[in-house]
């Protein structure tokens, strides 16, 4: 029986942070597509196109905004599609830098819960301890309202971890049958925190317990557990006589620390589908037209450039197409809403 404590090393998975450096201030980004996906063309119904971006009320506001905002229009949002795990929206009248910040915040600044420490008691599977620990860390856990429902372990007064700053999960699977067995995220069980015992080192009485009341029922459970329509995450395959027994401690964190805390699996971000801004005038092999794939859905939102149209040197991107896909730890609604709630300090 081996007993080892593993922490997800920094070197194991590159942090999302390093990927971000491409967004430099001095060169305006070229067409950026992350996690490019094929979008359903049927969604671009003319109904959406007909909605005007200006309501009469917004027009009234405009005058005040103009004096304050240097002539900028008020930002508008149009949600094109909303599903359980994804949202597709168009953002208008904002700056490119602003839209990009939005994207970055959604990817790396929203707290979620993920397994951070693993204590392995028995591991007779074919996979080494580190391998399993790393896989466990990647499993999305339900983190609704993680902002308030759990503390950061680093801010907590407890010595190692407690119910206010962590969630304990256990897994114990052994195979006694003559065929291969899957260990999946469904085998992970959350140990319910004891609501009544008070942590002995809790100084202020006022705020303890506050976190627990803000948790949803299945907070910290692996996403999709108990939902037969969702296939679980495979951790390991075992054969007869093999066993895996471990305890996990899940903590709150953000993806700047480790990508496992990102609530998004993919965020696609596009502007200027027809390359009217000519960000890549010289960057083609034979023809800039044929080598610029116009996205099916977003291409219909804007008029393609006419041949007789003169190039507008002062044009700026102001319409941004987002598709935010979450890993299930948070709903897309929550991801987008939390976005704006991130406190910017002055």
């Amino acid at each position, binding site marked *: 029986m081996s007993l080892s404590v593993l922490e997800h090393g*920094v070197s194991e998975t590159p*942090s999302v*942070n390093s990927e*971000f*450096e491409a967004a430099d*201030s001095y060169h305006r980004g070229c067409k950026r597509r992350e996690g490019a996906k094929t979008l359903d063309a049927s969604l671009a119904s003319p109904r959406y196109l007909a909605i005007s971006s200006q309501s009469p009320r917004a027009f009234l506001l405009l005058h005040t905004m103009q004096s*304050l*905002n*240097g002539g*900028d229009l*008020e*930002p*508008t*949002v*149009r*949600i094109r599609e*909303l*599903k*359980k*795990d*994804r949202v597709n*929206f168009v953002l208008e009248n*904002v*700056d*490119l*830098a*602003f839209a*990009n*910040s939005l994207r*970055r915040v959604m990817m790396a600044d929203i707290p979620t819960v993920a397994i951070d420490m693993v204590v392995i008691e028995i591991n007779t599977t074919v996979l080494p301890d580190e391998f399993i620990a790393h896989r466990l860390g990647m499993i999305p856990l*339900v983190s*609704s*309202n993680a902002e308030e429902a759990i503390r950061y372990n*680093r801010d907590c007064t407890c010595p190692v971890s407690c119910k206010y700053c962590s969630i304990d999960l256990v897994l114990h699977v052994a195979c006694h049958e003559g065929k291969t067995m899957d260990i999946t995220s469904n085998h992970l069980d959350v140990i319910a925190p004891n609501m009544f015992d008070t942590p002995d080192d809790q100084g202020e009485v006022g705020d303890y317990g506050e976190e627990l009341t803000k*948790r*949803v*029922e*299945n907070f910290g459970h692996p*996403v*999709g557990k*108990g*939902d037969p*329509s*969702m296939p679980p995450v495979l951790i390991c395959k075992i054969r007869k006589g093999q066993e895996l027994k471990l305890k996990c401690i899940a903590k709150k*964190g*953000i993806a*700047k*620390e480790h990508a496992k805390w990102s609530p998004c699996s993919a965020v696609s971000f596009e502007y200027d589908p027809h390359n009217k801004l000519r960000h890549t005038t010289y960057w083609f092999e034979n023809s800039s037209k044929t080598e610029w794939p116009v996205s099916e859905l977003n291409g219909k939102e804007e008029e393609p450039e006419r041949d007789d149209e003169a190039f507008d040197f002062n044009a700026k991107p102001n319409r941004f197409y987002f598709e935010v896909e979450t890993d*299930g*730890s948070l*709903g*897309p*609604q*929550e991801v*987008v*809403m939390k976005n*704006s709630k991130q406190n*910017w*300090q*002055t």
Partner: protein
Amino acid sequence: MNAPSRYELFVLDEGEKAVEITDDTKIPNAATVKILKQDHTLGNMIRAQLLANPTVLFAGYKVPHPLHPYFLIKIQTDGTTTPTDVLQQACTKLIGTLSTLEAKFKREFSFKDAESGGGGMGGMATGAGMGTGDDPYGGGGAGGGAQGWGGGRDYLDF
């Protein structure tokens, strides 16, 4: 063993000031602001907002080293305002934009909930899932009570 904690890249140390302003010694009405534990997300946004202000002659930011968690923002104004003031204005404006955007998002999401009709609203009422209507994984998911995605009580009061 003695590696610094990873969160030191985005959490201010005790007693550490988030913002540090140094006036430029050679250029009039110019200053360099050092913002700790922040990156391109905030830097580029502030830079762009500053440039929208006609009194700002120059605004640029840089992250001097990718391993050092701070950025510098250089601002020069035309003299009618100070760099500190324009920075403050820019931040206030950004916060304003964010809150209008939040309201817009809220409204849009509530429309989407209403549009998706009975299923979605039912989901909201019973507090299951996000109440988003269309079910990409076939029926039954939203009604799954606490087992729904991001489920449980609906504390998000959209």
